[in-house]
């Protein structure tokens, strides 16, 4: 024991290694590449994985594998899971406020507003899972002895080019509606601000979202979006985070297997969303059933 009080060094913090989120696991990019992520003032924040075409391919495989289970889950169950995401985010609110503030150069209070809105967005979409079918589907009064019912169904695997500027609220606003209806997603995080997306993956992993339902890639948007737009096993693409030239190029590539394309459009992510992002990735399935009369001979009852 020393008599002299030792001069205390400030504790050295533990850095987080940001990883991709694919099939419920957190791999590094198969390419081994990373790129520097800085805050709005250019200060180094972390090295993010710079995903490759192969990572994109792996993510599609994972998303396809997860599609059957997730689309087959009850709408009630999906609602519970999405609500669970909100719960988990609420618990890690401070972390996300810090990350969003760093990522987007926002004040603490503005970043807090963003995170609160994002949490509330999960709650909004959690409530939609078991209502959208009633709003946009239903029985059609065909002129014949048939019961005819139209129901929405998820289109499949959706590639999501997440908004570049709104790295968290924007991301949640485009991702939640995709999975609320039973699609699975491959998300390309904001290129220059990928960290909130990569952290969101950690929340999803602990929120009962089955592995593969959401897959998050960071890296160069154009490099990742091109193979996804051309991928024959991707059913739709949300171009929210693509600039005009890239969006056009991706839409052309998407035509190869007639992906459903949601073009980029100006969105105020703080506003209450409509149902458009839900319906953009839904198919309408219409089933006909004969009804006819109870008997061959009319009834005496």
């Amino acid at each position, binding site marked *: 024991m020393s008599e002299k009080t030792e001069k205390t060094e400030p504790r050295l913090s533990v850095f987080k290694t940001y990883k991709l989120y694919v099939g419920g696991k957190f791999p590094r990019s198969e390419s081994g590449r990373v790129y520097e992520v800085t805050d709005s003032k250019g200060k180094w924040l972390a090295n993010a994985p710079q995903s490759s075409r192969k990572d994109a391919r792996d993510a599609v495989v994972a998303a396809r594998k997860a599609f059957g289970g997730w689309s087959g889950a009850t709408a009630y169950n999906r609602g519970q899971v999405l609500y669970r995401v909100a719960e988990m985010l609420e618990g890690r609110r401070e972390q996300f406020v810090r990350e969003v503030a760093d990522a987007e150069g926002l004040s603490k209070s503005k970043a807090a507003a963003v995170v609160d809105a994002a949490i509330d967005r999960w709650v909004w979409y959690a409530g939609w899972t078991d209502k959208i079918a009633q709003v946009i589907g239903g029985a059609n009064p065909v002129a*014949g002895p048939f019961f*005819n019912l139209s129901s929405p169904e998820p289109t499949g695997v959706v590639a999501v080019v997440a908004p570049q500027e709104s790295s968290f609220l924007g991301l949640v606003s485009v991702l939640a509606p995709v999975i609320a209806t039973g699609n699975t997603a491959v998300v390309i995080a904001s290129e220059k601000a990928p960290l909130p997306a990569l952290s969101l993956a950690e929340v999803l992993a602990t929120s009962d979202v089955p592995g593969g339902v959401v897959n998050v890639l960071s890296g160069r948007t154009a490099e990742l979006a091109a193979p996804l737009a051309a991928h024959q096993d991707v059913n739709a693409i949300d171009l929210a985070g693509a600039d005009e030239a890239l969006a056009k190029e991706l839409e052309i590539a998407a035509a190869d297997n*007639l992906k459903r394309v949601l073009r980029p459009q100006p969105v105020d992510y703080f506003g209450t969303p409509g149902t458009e992002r839900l319906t953009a990735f839904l198919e*309408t*399935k*219409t089933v006909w*059933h*004969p009804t006819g009369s109870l008997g061959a001979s009319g009834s005496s009852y």
Partner: protein
Amino acid sequence: MTEKITEKRSSAFEYAPAPESRSVVDIAPSYGLFIDGEFVDAADGKVFKTVSPSTEEVLSEVAQAGEADVERAVKAARKAFEKWSALPGSERAKYLFRIARIIQERSRELAVLETLDNGKPIKETRDADLPLVAAHFFYYAGWADKLDHAGFGANPKPLGVAGQVIPWNFPLLMLAWKIAPALATGNTVVLKPAETTPLSALFFADICRQAGLPKGVVNILPGYGDTGAALVAHPDVNKVAFTGSTAVGKEIARTVAGTSKKLTLELGGKGANIVFDDAPIDQAVEGIVTGIFFNQGQVCCAGSRLLVQESVQDELMDSLKRRLSTLRLGDPLDKNTDIGAINSAEQLARITALAEQGEAEGAERWSPACELPASGYWFAPTLFTNVTQAHTIARDEIFGPVLSVLTFRTPDEAVAKANNTQYGLSAGIWTEKGSRILAVASRLRAGVIWSNTFNKFDPTSPFGGYKESGFGREGGRHGLEAYLDV
């Protein structure tokens, strides 16, 4: 099965010819383009001939729209849009009701016309096409003043000028599917009918005149693929709707990429018609026949793949073959004709080539004894058995009266095979077990599913595909969305 052959009597019940009168329709020797309420020649004076596929007789000579004509038509539609979209919905509704009524009044004439130009049996134009055409206009007429209640928010706005390109298999019905919702929602239209079946669209132009529809609201531009390409590429077109082949659909999707044009595509299919061992077999046989031989199989939602549970394959095939032997192929104007002509020499060549490929790949080909007329384009109803998923005829859309028969052992296998295609337009399920219908229907990736029935259509029922069968829905409330800025 042993069939006891009894002695044939000398006088069989031969149906005498029962031709529908051709005189109810008066086809002019030539037709112009319909632009801004007038029939006009093409700017470059080009014309093309349209023939009757059952006789190869030239029916009329039709103006062929070029780029300059597309320009004029879009301009006319743009000009008309301002007033048309500003009309109260209730007034637009009345125009559409008028059109629906005139179609009903002239339905015999239009049925004969359609049969002449397309080659399909009068039985179908009379009992399916024309009633559905009128019903479609009636249905959307009623929406025109109720758009606030359609679930797209208050006062949804039309898009502007709709460029519409339709196929030759249901010429007037596809026109109705395109024009009725477009007009109800306040859009104006430039429509290109298929080059082999332009006449009913031109007669429709006359109906628009009879109905007093304002000039320029509907413009009809007969022409070939290049006319359609110019139309969908036109910068002042706000909405593109196309029904046709998947290859052209992809080309159109590339064309409109990067623009603000709203796009709906209704494309090809390779529908699976799944027959389980507990099916109502006689009705299943009828459903299979309707599924693949309705309109000579030239139907995007045809049940062109028969998936039959292996345990009932022999029995079903016997029944099916017996039934095919009763199909009556011949003069499309004869009221007893079940199978008419193939629409064009080109289509016939494609069907022929694919059928030959089926044989070459080892599938077993069967057709009933069937005499084909000497002139015109004809193809006998054809079955292929011993077909597997790997055969071209199990994967490619043939668009003709050719059925590929595959087998399965379990519901799982049936669903897996049914979904194993790049298409996703239609499917059929035949079983008496209600829960199986629902389970299978929920797992099939197709936009329209018929359980214990097939090829049923209704204006209230949304129609359209999954995957490469296109996107967007036509019909019903859903069909409004494609023409509204929502």
